[in-house]
């Protein structure tokens, strides 16, 4: 094995038991926790300091958000199935589930677009009050993360086959890591939903 090859991409390192990608994605998720954590602390400080703070459900459409929560949770499930299909060497099934996850992402963004245009049409803008401002920033940044995840999945959907055929373990790990990122995005929404819409 040549010295120029970077090791532990496919097989985990014996003493740490982890592959490079796995540690990398968990570190990235840690930094994302701090990013959204900062925005949540901004939300809490603004809410605690504000004289009046509208209740989420009066200003926002709870049912659309509920639908979105269901869509995102099911996209998490299809993502896990896409990874499980690879373990069963069923690349066709994998592509189907990956496409399904991508579709759920699109639906999620579609509902988000409906929600946003609804706000704008009632001329509720970020500048209206700090509740809407932090709402747009939190859901907007979350939306950008959804788009980022979808781009990665699209890349695998279109160009994944060659990598799967040459280095199947590496491809499986990549899908698993993308899955970890996607579940994290779902996890952030699980907190966003009650905090913005229900409290």
């Amino acid at each position, binding site marked *: 094995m040549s010295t120029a090859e970077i090791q532990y991409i496919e097989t985990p390192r014996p003493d*740490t038991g*982890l592959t490079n990608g796995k540690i990398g994605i968990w570190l990235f998720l840690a930094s994302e926790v701090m990013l959204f954590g900062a925005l949540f602390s901004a939300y809490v*400080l603004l809410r605690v300091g504000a004289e009046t703070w509208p209740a989420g459900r009066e200003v926002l459409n709870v049912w659309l958000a509920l639908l979105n929560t269901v869509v995102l949770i099911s996209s998490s499930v299809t993502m896990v199935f896409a990874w499980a299909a690879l373990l*069963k060497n069923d690349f066709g099934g994998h592509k189907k589930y990956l496409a399904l996850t991508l579709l759920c992402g699109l639906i999620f963004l579609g509902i988000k677009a409906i929600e946003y245009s609804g706000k704008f049409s009632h001329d509720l803008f970020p500048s209206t009050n700090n509740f809407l401002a932090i709402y747009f920033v939190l859901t907007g940044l979350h939306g950008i993360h959804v788009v980022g995840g979808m781009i990665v999945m699209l890349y695998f959907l279109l160009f994944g086959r060659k990598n799967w055929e040459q280095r199947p373990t590496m491809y499986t790990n990549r899908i698993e890591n993308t899955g970890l990122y996607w*579940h994290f995005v779902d996890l952030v929404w699980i*907190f966003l939903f009650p905090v913005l819409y*229900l409290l």
Partner: protein
Amino acid sequence: MDPQTATIEEINRHVKLYLGVFAALLVLTAVTVGVAYIDLGHGANIGLALVIATLKASLVGFFFMHLKWERRSVYGLILLTFFFFAGMIGLILGGYWDTPTGTVHDRVAIEIHTTHDDTGGSE
């Protein structure tokens, strides 16, 4: 289950497990919405919503993100990040709650004198 050496039945068993977790998540989502419409007092509502959200988050984390079968070091990273996350929110709020009251700044702000040209007409 070690991805490299898992057998087909093991994987299928896991797939069923994922469906179970999916169902649980949907139920919890319905519960959290339902509970929100019952007014249990502001503090209780927040507490309950956060508990349910944490429950759902740990379900996603343990099963979908395979934390259940993950190495200890990843837990360490999550714990470290959570400690700093909690420290950040706690200390920022601490800074807000601990603001002293009844200080000289609390007196009514000095009447804001308009700086119009007071040596003649008005603008």
